[in-house]
């Protein structure tokens, strides 16, 4: 099967709507079919990978730890827009340190999160063959 460049664009905060969780589930399903999968976190989507999420007070399942499994599915390009962070008073330090293990380098841990500018994000989005929006 020919692989294509799949992009999942995430623009919503988690928990208030179901978009974030739906996106994550679709990403895991698509990744099981060995496509080249990237994720973009733009606008409120950056909250999806904010560290320290605690849902005890709202009685919903905390699915933030599942982003750490993406590396196992060979999904290791998580692009985060710098301007989106800044507009929300956030920095890269507010994000989970999501890593993937490089099997070709004795399972060396490498960061999956890549902070990019809005202009770089536009270029990345333009390169994709299939784009899903959440």
């Amino acid at each position, binding site marked *: 099967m020919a692989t294509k460049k799949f992009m999942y664009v995430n623009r919503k905060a988690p928990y208030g709507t179901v978009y974030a969780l739906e996106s994550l*589930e679709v990403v*895991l*399903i698509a*990744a*099981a079919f*060995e496509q080249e999968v990237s994720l973009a976190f733009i606008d409120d989507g950056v909250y999806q990978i904010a560290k320290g999420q605690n849902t005890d007070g709202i009685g919903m*399942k*905390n*699915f933030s*730890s*599942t982003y*750490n*499994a993406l590396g*196992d*599915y060979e999904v290791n390009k998580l692009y985060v827009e710098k301007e989106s962070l800044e507009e929300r008073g956030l920095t890269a330090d507010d994000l989970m340190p999501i890593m993937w293990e490089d*099997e070709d380098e004795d*399972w060396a841990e490498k960061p999956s999160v890549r902070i990019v500018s809005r202009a770089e994000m536009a270029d990345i989005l333009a390169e994709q063959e299939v784009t899903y929006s959440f």
Partner: protein
Amino acid sequence: MALVVNGAEVATDEEGYLEDLSVWTPEIADAMAKEEDVDLSDEHWDIINFLREYYEEYQIAPAVRVLTKAVGKKLGKDKGNSKYLYSLFPYGPGKQACKYAGLPKPTGCV
């Protein structure tokens, strides 16, 4: 559907997966295996325990491909292949082992 373990009914869905993951005990895994004429060996338990740890950390049941690779890394290359995993879980390592481990069906499994 209900499974009876130590005289108590345990609720499962139509495919035999636990309705409530938090009620899982090793006895439940044994009872599920017995229904499918499987005697759980230490090798089975290695995989079941691995799946439970994976779920605890990531909140998902891994896809078979991910499970195979991760088992290879953790338990050795001789075990990290589908032939070995299918020999233990002939109904499919994802579906069958996840069920015994009290996990939901792996994401992407139909």
